[in-house]
């Protein structure tokens, strides 16, 4: 029993960064922007948080807990916002190809993450090679005080840092926004057919910009969760791995619905670490299990496209730039 709970807790922890990435990408894709730069944005979200935290924690003698959280949080949001703005400017204003821009953005973001992650200590004149922000990490990992006393229930529900709960809140809010508000419906209209939305008086450019930027900031929080909560304020180059792409896979798996993204992210998080918890596997069997998330995603993508149910299909104008004179 405790082992099952251990697996679920580990799956949730692995799933949280994926959920941030997926929610952000869903909002972005609903505007018709296929932002393949999400993995890069998540790296930048992480490293910006680290930079902000490093400057505050190492430069002040007695850091305050509130600021230990607030400064990395804001710098992370700022970092991912700048990345998303760059993507929006290139694809919406300059109408460049979304795939190429997105891939370049990922190269850029991963490069920035690894460069500053590997060089920050030296650039700031410190000693030692690696970054470890114990106090910031501790602030981010703070649990509710009664979590320990509730045994396995406490472990299952209350043993996470605040960013984990925020991820679920954001996903629920995103679902509400997309389905129940006028702006959400307008946004979906932009992603389905920008020309029609434009004719209906919806400001396509503004919606695309806002959706991409807000989506990017949400995705960046996934990177922040990873570096502050999961790795306890430490940075390892390429430590975040290919989780950004897995987040894009979840968008497909959850058929562009934020509420479905919550269990999907947990499932994918579980699949990511499942091989560790199954005893007696040979190493090739472990690798086979690690293949599952991607294969399952492909199956979902094909099934959805074969069934052609309108509400499950990707946004119709996904990946296309909109130029109003070209209808």
């Amino acid at each position, binding site marked *: 029993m405790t082992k099952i709970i251990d697996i679920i807790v580990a799956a949730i922890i692995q799933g949280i960064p994926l959920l941030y990435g997926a929610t952000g990408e869903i909002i972005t894709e609903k505007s018709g922007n296929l932002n*393949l730069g999400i993995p890069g944005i998540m790296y930048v979200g992480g490293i910006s948080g680290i930079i902000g935290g490093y400057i505050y924690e190492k430069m002040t003698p007695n850091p305050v807990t509130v600021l230990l959280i607030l400064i990395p949080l804001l710098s992370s949001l700022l970092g991912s916002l700048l990345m998303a703005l*760059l993507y929006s*400017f*290139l694809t919406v*204003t*300059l*109408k*460049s*190809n979304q*795939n*190429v*821009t997105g*891939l*370049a*953005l*990922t*190269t*850029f973001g*991963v*490069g*920035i*993450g*690894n*460069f500053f*992650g*590997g*060089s920050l200590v*030296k*650039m700031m004149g410190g000693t030692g090679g690696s970054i470890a922000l114990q106090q910031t990490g501790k602030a981010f990992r703070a649990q509710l005080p009664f979590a320990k006393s509730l045994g396995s229930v406490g472990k299952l529900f209350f043993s996470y840092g605040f960013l984990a709960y925020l991820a679920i809140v954001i996903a629920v809010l995103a679902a509400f926004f997309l389905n129940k508000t006028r702006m959400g419906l307008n946004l979906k209209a932009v992603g389905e057919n920008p020309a029609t939305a*434009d004719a209906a008086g919806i*400001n*396509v*450019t*503004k919606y695309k*910009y806002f959706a991409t930027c807000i989506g990017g900031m949400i995705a960046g929080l996934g990177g922040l969760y990873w570096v502050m909560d999961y790795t306890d304020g430490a940075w390892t*180059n390429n430590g975040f791995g*290919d989780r950004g*792409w897995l987040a*894009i896979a979840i968008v*497909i798996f959850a058929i562009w619905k934020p509420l479905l993204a919550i269990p999907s992210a947990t499932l994918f998080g579980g699949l990511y670490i499942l091989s560790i918890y199954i005893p007696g596997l040979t*190493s*090739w069997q*472990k*690798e*086979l299990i690690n*293949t599952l998330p*991607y*294969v399952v*995603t*492909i199956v979902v*993508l*094909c099934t959805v*496209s*074969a069934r*052609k149910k309108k509400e499950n299909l*990707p946004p119709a104008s996904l*990946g296309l730039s909109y*130029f*109003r*004179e070209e209808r």
Partner: protein
Amino acid sequence: MKSEKIVKEPLIHITKRDTMPPWQSILIRVGAVLIALAVSAVLVIVLTKTNPMSVFDAMFKGSFGSVRKMQNLMKSVATLLCISLAITPAFKMKFWNIGAEGQVLMGALAAAAVMRTMGRYVIPSWVVILVMLAAALVSGLIWAVIPAIFKALWNTNETLFTLMMNYVAMQIIQIFIAIWIKSGSGVVGYINEQSHRGWLPDLFGVKYLLNIIVVAGLTVFMFVYLKFSKHGYEISVVGESENTARYIGINVKKVVIRTMAISGALCGLAGFLLVAGADHTINKDLAGGMGFTAIMVSWLAKFNPFIMVGASFMLVFLDRGASNVATMCKLNDSVGEIITAIIIFFIIGCEFFIRYKINFRARTPKEKAPDEPEKPEQTEITEGEKAPAGIA
């Protein structure tokens, strides 16, 4: 729109250009590259706090510092160019195949598997090489055709499909390595290190020369194929407009599948060259992200194979040079990736000025000071919306 009767004409109005004289578009692109290089230079100097001359010196040494470095440079350029050429037909058709990485890896895996299996027997090396080549071409082809068939049948989003196929390919390599290497180290060393069976020979004693010759031949072939063959014509028509293609009787589904097959097989060739002609081993990072960089090369060169030679050379040179500068200053060598991305941002950004024309509102005496509060970049469409409202 130019009529005087409109109360408020938008400040900026974007129109599509018909054509631009070639010298003008070349000038814009060269300008963008120069600005990008200047920005990168400033960035490197600020980050590393070294003087510009030693930065340029170190950049040059990173690529041409020794015979070994020059060989590695040429090897990388050849591989990147090969993958770029491979994906170009599909890209020209507007089939967004971002799965080159996976197709290259599957080709490499097939080549490595043949090399390992046949290497145990005493077989002439050229036989092994031919079987490796065939296996690599076929597996690259299969890996590319799967998404193409789904695209043709059900219009499945090919960008997401091919993206996922990359990671499946990487995992398949991990599975094979785990089966092959019982020690659990997860590292396949040089395959056939003693017998060199299945290794491409060094022509005239020059390393990687055979790779370079093959890719050079492929460059010419791809130019002719795209420009002068019937297939090439069909690819451009499908890329421009599927409806037109259907109207003039082109079987779009057939063209999509056939082009992806060619694209995938050539990616398999790149994988073969990596295993047989360069690294003689297999791991999931063998392609090293070049499957993604190749997309940018192909796009930057506007699908022209000869410009791709220069583009891949430039990207590899800058990446190596910048990494060398960073290593010299004991900083992380990812600065190369940052510079690659900056250059791509500038070049894809400059396309806008080639494709579109920006018309500013003519200043008339009765016009008041511009009262648009928003930034001009964000408002070219917003402002357009206000004009009809003005008439009403």
